[in-house]
């Protein structure tokens, strides 16, 4: 069996705020800084989705990227794009919408949802200097 990994890059924009309601305003400010500002802020997120699978001899592809786009659009992008991550995603209720939490949401939405391929990594980039990944193997 010969596996090839395919990575597709997508974009979305969303707002959020880092805030723990069980902490005082002072402690939230001290730990999260400007990310705790009351009315939130936003990012132009980049999402990288990596799947692994065998190459179909007829198409030369692991998966048709249009099909992957459709799946990611329906399962993820339509859920998060131009949304408030603190209030608009029921699965994230009670959590701080950190980059890690968002990566976990994307992982749960896509794991097992891509026919003929295995999800191996999702990477959510908040900026060029900060990103979080969920991966099947540690340190992939």
């Amino acid at each position: 069996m010969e596996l090839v990994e395919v990575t597709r890059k997508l974009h979305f924009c969303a707002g959020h705020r880092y805030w723990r309601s069980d902490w005082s305003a002072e402690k939230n400010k001290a730990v999260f800084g400007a990310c705790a500002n009351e009315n939130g802020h936003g990012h132009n997120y980049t999402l990288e989705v990596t799947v692994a699978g065998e190459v179909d001899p007829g198409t030369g592809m692991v998966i048709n990227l249009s099909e992957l786009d459709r799946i990611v659009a329906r399962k993820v992008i339509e859920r998060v794009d131009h949304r408030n991550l603190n209030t608009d995603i029921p699965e994230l209720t009670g959590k701080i919408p950190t980059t890690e939490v968002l990566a976990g949401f994307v992982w749960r939405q896509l794991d097992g949802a891509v026919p003929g391929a295995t999800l191996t990594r999702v990477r959510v980039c908040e900026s060029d200097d900060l990103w979080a990944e969920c991966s099947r193997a540690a340190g992939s």
Partner: protein
Amino acid sequence: MKPFWTLARRYRFSAAHTLRSPGLSDEENRRLFGKCANPSGHGHDYLVDVMVTAASLDRDVVMDRGELDALVKREIESRFAWMNVNETFGPGFLTSGENLARAVWELLSPHMPPGRRLSIRLVETAKNSFVYRGPA
């Protein structure tokens, strides 16, 4: 299945260095490293990707970003930023990208929170990058 989480943060340091193997003559260093062995030194805008991996999140994060930033400032920035890393690490240390990546790992690794595994990617130029994940 439950994934592993990695939080990654990119830091930037401008530093001077020269490649010099302590056991070799000037001529041998020049032959081995070419222009990188110029004894007057040269420099790079290094990128250091600090990647912290965990099997589960603690309070919605792999690691507190402020804590990571403070750690990198204390342990790395103080030794790299606007400095000559040959001076920082001494004449017995060959300042290759591989060795610098491992040095960064060794400086940060003891300070990782419990259950966190560290990997370092050091980008010397757009053409050269080095990853060290700790002893095998």
